[in-house]
């Protein structure tokens, strides 16, 4: 019996090896292509389903807020896009890390395909926030810490999108963009905590990990469904783009075999 329990160091070692195997197994572009092709319809349709339910409930059936009235309904689009703006950039930074450290081909492609979707989410977040700011605060835009840090995030996305495509040698583009993505990750905690560290016009978060949410349940449920739908929609868009990118690389490799070493993935 006792010799069946392995020593601790051995367990952690096997765990690291297993994690490494896990990543090597699923991060292979070909395997990723097959798996994502299989799950793409499920992701797409559940995204449509949850977005439809969440937005329908939020925009038409949830109660108006006691102080903001019907304008509060912009929240059901604003909050999911705000979360996806930050989450998308975190994913971009993870891709950047694996580009720089492991020189992973799938991470290069993923960084290229995530950035435009994330930039759209950030733009939507800024636009809806501005449209809500006018009737509520009395202004479309102020230079407070929360709004400014999100605008910087939008510019980081735009910089990443142009930098990754700016080089003749694709590898150099991937690496330059990876450095930008990793440097910009500092903006994420600033966005998150800006409303707590400095006084801002933007209100603090209603949903936090540590406190009970300060939002009535009749508004929280449609918001959660809408967040789920938008997040699945983000994944569906990224999967579709990434699959197209993998196919594009394959076709280029077939058509121009001589470029294989330098210019592919």
């Amino acid at each position: 019996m006792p010799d069946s329990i392995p020593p601790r160091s051995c367990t952690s070692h096997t765990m690291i090896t297993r994690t490494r195997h896990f990543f090597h197994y699923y991060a292979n572009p070909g395997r990723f292509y097959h798996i994502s092709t299989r799950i793409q319809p499920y992701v797409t349709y559940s995204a449509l389903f949850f977005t439809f339910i969440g937005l329908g409930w939020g925009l038409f059936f949830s109660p108006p807020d006691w102080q903001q009235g019907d304008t509060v309904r912009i929240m059901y689009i604003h909050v999911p896009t705000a979360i996806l703006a930050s989450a998308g950039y975190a994913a971009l930074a993870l891709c950047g890390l694996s580009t720089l450290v492991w020189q992973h081909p799938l991470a290069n492609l993923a960084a290229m395909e995530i950035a435009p979707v994330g930039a759209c989410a950030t733009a939507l977040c800024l636009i809806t926030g501005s449209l809500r700011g006018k009737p509520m605060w009395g202004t479309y835009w102020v230079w407070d810490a929360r709004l400014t840090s999100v605008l910087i995030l939008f510019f980081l996305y735009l910089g990443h999108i142009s930098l990754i495509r700016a080089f003749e040698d694709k590898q150099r583009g991937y690496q330059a963009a990876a450095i930008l993505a990793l440097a910009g990750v500092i903006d994420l905690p600033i966005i998150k905590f800006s409303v707590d560290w400095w006084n801002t016009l933007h209100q603090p978060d209603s949903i936090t990990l540590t406190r009970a949410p300060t939002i009535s349940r009749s508004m929280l449920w449609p918001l959660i469904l809408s967040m789920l739908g938008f997040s699945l929609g983000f994944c569906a868009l990224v999967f579709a783009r990434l699959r197209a990118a993998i196919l594009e690389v394959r076709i280029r490799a077939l058509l121009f075999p001589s470029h294989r070493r330098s210019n592919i993935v």
Partner: protein
Amino acid sequence: MTRKTRRLWLVLICIACFGTAIGLILRAFSSDIVFFVTPSQIVASPPPDHRLVKLGGMVVAGSVHYSKHKETPVVTFDVTDGRTAVTVTYQGILPDLFREGQSVIVIGTVTSKHRFTASEVLAKHDETYMPKEVADALRKSGKWDPRFGPPPPDIWHSNQN
């Protein structure tokens, strides 16, 4: 240590250094990053005349007075941070959310120690969201009156729906 591990450490150390640098910069500039100053800050160290400042605080219940100067509406109200209050005069249209007990940010100049002339009024809403009926029920039961500031955090445990 393999080359990959070395690269990983290098990247992580670079991020840590860069993050520390940004953190120190933000700390150094934190007094400029704040969007508004409070009434007690203005009373303690008045800004120079004609300098545009943003003053933030809560509208004191019962202090709002409307009058008319020629054709434009003039409103005076007190803005407080709980320690001291400043009387604000504003000519123009107020945002929809403006009411007693609401947090506001007024942009304008300090005219004397406790007086302020605003050129712009912004309403700040807090992070509580609830249907109107819930807010009315809370007011009726005496648990919370919106004229005296944001709701206490514990009302949420008994009154969610």
